[in-house]
Every structure is written in structure tokens, then in C-alpha cells.
């Protein structure tokens, strides 16, 4: 289900913005095993987009389909308006990619890998010495080391460096903070935010909801190979509340269809009922007064509760 409440397809002037990534019904099965099942989503120009989902939900498969490593069974994907398969070379010329599992050439020096990446992007490594030095300093990378001698975290840092060294217009990161210490995590997001301010679009997948909340303007939730929700994470974005009421055990509670803005019932536990609410406060208070609850809690919905409601299957009793 694609969120229709949030529309980032229009800028403040009401002009339609071109999505940098546009995915339509992208389906990929590995034999009988599901990779993605009709993924549809857009990532708009200049945004940081979080891609959230549990292991096996289809995040990495989607990213690999975007890169053309995997061939989709059906559906289509375009980046910067160009088909990811037909215009593979041109599309990838504008992308930097950090894989989830970093495996590069074991006996290659980091400096050679970075230079090779620049050459692939038609850039002369000697013109990028300053940039290479800067990136290595930001991510605490020793460019003289051989790749096989690096720890997991240092390998990840090299992957990040090679993804950004050529100033891409779009950076795809598959769980980039796995294995990174907190300091480098901070440096990574500081860097990503700084290049984002200069116009670079970023999509990263993650299990870490806090880093998604802190850095992304929007997030897509993927479950069983489908995007089930796209969430506005900006301060003025999601206005939904979670309302929890406590009622005497003798009372039963069902969500009123007459209350505009009442959403899903999230939890029913020991006489306490939680539900989404996105209507106006007066209507809610007026409705609650008719129930005479023994306790009421109205709070902003957290990303965590969203995540749990999506992946724990809705009502929890």
C-alpha cells in the first residue's frame, strides 16, 4: 500500500518534481523463494530516504535490482528518468553504492581501489588527491592498507569512501552503519547530510530506526517484498497520534466508524486499547467523554510503534 496522505511529489510551489528513483511493481523470485513482490516506490530528488524492514523483507534485493545485478521477473525501475537496465552505464555513472556485505579485492590497496573507482567514473585520480585525502580523514581510513588486512568496520568505511569519492548524484547504502563505531556513524551521517544539502539524493536501508528518524525525510516500510507504507518523517509530517484508553473490564471497545480520523486498533491488553488517530482534537475529546475511560494517554506516534505495528501484524492482544 502506498501512502496517499504524504505527497512529496510536489515542491512548495506545487510543481511536480521528478523522482530520482521510480520503481513500479518490481518483482523478483529466486526460484520459489521471494525476493521482492511488486515493490512500488519513488524517491524524490534531494531527499534522504530510509528503507526499513526486517531481514529478508526485500531491501537488499530491491537495491540490487536497481543496480542491475539482478534481473527482475517483472516490473520496471528507473533512475534519473533512465531505465536501470537499458541505460545501465549512464545510470551507474551517477551512483555511489555501499553494499551490505563488503567484499572487495583482498590483495588490493585501499588507495588503488579508490583510484580505480575514480577511473571508472572518468575522473583522473591525480586531480582527486585532495578529495581522497579528505575522505580518508573523515572516515579514518589508511589508504596504504591492503583490503584483506582490514577489520569489518574498516572495510565498511572503505566501501563508504569509494561510494562518495566521485561526487555521485545518488548514493545507495545497504545497512551502512553495520560494524561502524559510533564516531564514524556520526561522521557518516554528518557527511551524508552535507552532500545532501548540496543536492545529492540518498537512499539507505537500515534496521536502526533512530538513525532513520534522525536523518531521513521519508521512510519506506517493506514487508514480504512489498512497500506497505511510506512515512513522512519531517517535523510537520506525520500528525498521527496513538491514543490509549483504559476501560472497565466489563466494557468492550470497537473503533467507532463515526469518529473521523480514527485509524487502526493497535493493541488490546488488560482493558487498555490503543489506536491511531489523525483527526482533530475536539472530536476526539468529545468522543472520549462518552466512554468515561479511567485513563487516557495521547502521544505522538513513534517510528518504533509504527515499525512494530507493521511487523507484528496489527492488533496485539
Amino acid at each position, binding site marked *: 500500500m502506498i501512502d496517499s496522505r504524504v505527497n512529496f511529489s510536489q515542491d512548495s510551489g506545487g510543481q511536480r518534481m521528478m523522482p530520482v528513483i521510480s520503481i513500479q511493481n518490481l518483482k523478483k523470485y529466486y526460484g520459489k523463494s521471494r525476493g521482492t513482490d511488486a515493490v512500488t516506490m519513488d524517491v524524490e530528488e534531494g531527499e534522504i530516504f530510509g528503507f526499513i524492514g526486517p531481514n529478508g523483507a526485500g531491501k537488499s534485493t530491491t537495491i540490487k535490482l536497481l543496480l542491475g545485478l539482478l534481473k527482475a521477473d517483472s516490473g520496471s525501475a528507473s533512475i534519473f528518468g533512465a531505465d536501470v537496465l537499458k541505460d545501465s*552505464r549512464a545510470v551507474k555513472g551517477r551512483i555511489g553504492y555501499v553494499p551490505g556485505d563488503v567484499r572487495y579485492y583482498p590483495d588490493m590497496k585501499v588507495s588503488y581501489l579508490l583510484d580505480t573507482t575514480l577511473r571508472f567514473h572518468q575522473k583522473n585520480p591525480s586531480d582527486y588527491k585532495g578529495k581522497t585525502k579528505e575522505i580518508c580523514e573523515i572516515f579514518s581510513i589508511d589508504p596504504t592498507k591492503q583490503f584483506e588486512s582490514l577489520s569489518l568496520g574498516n572495510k565498511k568505511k572503505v566501501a563508504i569512501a569509494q561510494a562518495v569519492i566521485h561526487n555521485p548524484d545518488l548514493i545507495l547504502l545497504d545497512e551502512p552503519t553495520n560494524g561502524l563505531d559510533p564516531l564514524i556513524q556520526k561522521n557518516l551521517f554528518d557527511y551524508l547530510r552535507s552532500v545532501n544539502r548540496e543536492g545529492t539524493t540518498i537512499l539507505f536501508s537500515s534496521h536502526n530506526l533512530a538513525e532513520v528518524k534522525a536523518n531521513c525525510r521519508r521512510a519506506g516500510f517493506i514487508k514480504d517484498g512489498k512497500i506497505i507504507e511510506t512515512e513522512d518523517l519531517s517535523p510537520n509530517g506525520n500528525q498521527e497520534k496513538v491514543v490509549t484508553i483504559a476501560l472497565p473490564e466489563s466494557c468492550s471497545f470497537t473503533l467507532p466508524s463515526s469518529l473521523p480520523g480514527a485509524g487502526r486498533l493497535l493493541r488490546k491488553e488488560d482493558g487498555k486499547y490503543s489506536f491511531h488517530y489523525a483527526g482533530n482534537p475536539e472530536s476526539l475529546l468529545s468522543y472520549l467523554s462518552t466512554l468515561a475511560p479511567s485513563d487516557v494517554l495521547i502521544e505522538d506516534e513513534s517510528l518504533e510503534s509504527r515499525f512494530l505495528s507493521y511487523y507484528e501484524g496489527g492488533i496485539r492482544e
Partner: protein
Amino acid sequence: MNVFRLDFHNQRKSLLVWASIVAVSVLSFMAFYPSMNSTDMAAAITSQASAFSPEMLQAFGLDSLPDFTRIIEFYAYLMQYFALAGACYAAILGANALIGEETSGTIEYLYAQPVTRSEIFFQKLLSAVTSYSAYCLAVALFSYLSVLVFKAAGTDLSDTFAGITKITAGLLFTGFIFLAVGFLLSVLLKSQRSVAFLATGLVFGTYIAGSFAMAFEKKIDGIRYLIYLSPLHYAVPADILRTGVEPANIWTGLGIMIVSIGLAYFLYQKKDLKS
């Protein structure tokens, strides 16, 4: 040509190892030539050879007994075994070329760069061809050197060097066939782990089939066609010196190369690049 550059950079160590081993081996085995260069030794070999059945002699490439007192014939006899090593190297090079990146996971780096599958395919093919050509060049150079060091007095150097060049060309030809078949294997295999076993199995399996066919072609009807299964029998070094390579063998070899590379290219365009 960045894929070529990267791939050749990654292959340079293995090329150096293979070329060094074969260079040392060529020099070591050619060091036996001076002891062969005597009429007594030639007579002894002829006498020993007569004890074997014609089939055995054929299987070991001794059907028309070489004149080991001539350095080029001694060299040609040795090279039929070096050709086996060269074929193994070529088959392994080809078979590792594409699946190697998937097994090691480096394809995620390589294919995230602005390159197409066609560029990866053809530049890796060129890299493998270059590596194998460099290997053959090393074999040729150390062969020339060994002749200069171990030749007998009165050896016609220009004739001998021309013979070495022809045999090296045969080594290139048979190696390219195995490299092309290896390339096809590289697209079909799911992992690199069995590459060395399969590649050497391919070389020795086809060689044994060809040797068997040669040994029994007069006794078993139709078995001679099995020779076409063995690229190493298309350009046997001693035959190259005597008669050159038969046109039918050249066309068969070229056909195998074209079909293997064409099929490999077609399949590589369609497959998932898994890591």
C-alpha cells in the same frame, strides 16, 4: 578499459607464478638435451621404444619416433606435455574469469561502476587472452634461451627458432580453445570452488579421449572422430613441425571458440549476478 586494467592487475600474480614455473621447467628439461645428442643415446631410445606396442607409442606421441639428436625434435616432444600445462592454465583462466567475481563477492563493486555486462564480458575475455598470450610469450622466450644455452654445434638457429615460433602458435591456438570453453563454464557454474578441478578435468579428459582415439583408430571403426574432442590433438608440436596444423582442425577449433564465447555472452546477459 578499466575492467581490463583491474582484471589484469588482479591476475598478474598468478600469471607470474605460472610463467615462472614453466620457464624454469623448460630450462630444466632442455638441459637434458646435450645428453640426448649422441648416436648411442638415439640407438638406445630406438631400442627401448621397440619394446612398446604401437598403441602405447601412439598414445605417448612416439608413433613416428622423433630424432632426439635434433634439438627442435627433442623440444617438440617435451612441448606436448607443456601444452597440457598451458591448456590447464588457459582453461582455469577462462573458467575463473566471470564466476570468480561472483564467488568472491567483488561483482557488487564491479557492477556498481558505470560498466555494462558486455564491457565486463569482453574486457575480461581480453584480459584472459592477454594473460595467456603473455604466458606463451614467456614459454617462447625461455625456449629460445634454452636453445641458445644447450644447442649442439652446427645447429641451424633460424630453423630451430622458426620451429619454436610455430609450436608456440600451436600452444596459443589450443590454449584459446580451452580458454573459450572455460569462459562458457564460467557462466554456467554456480561457484568458483570447483573451477580448478573441472578445468583440469576438461583438459585431461579430452586429452585422454584423443589419445585413446589415436591409439585405436586402426582397430576400432569410427573412433578416430573422438580426436575432435581433444583440442590438444589439433596441434601436436611434432605434427606442427612435420605437416603443420590441418585446416579441419583449425576450423573445428575456431568453431568451438565461437560457439563457446557466443553462448557464454548470451547467457551472461541474462543471468543474475549473485554474490
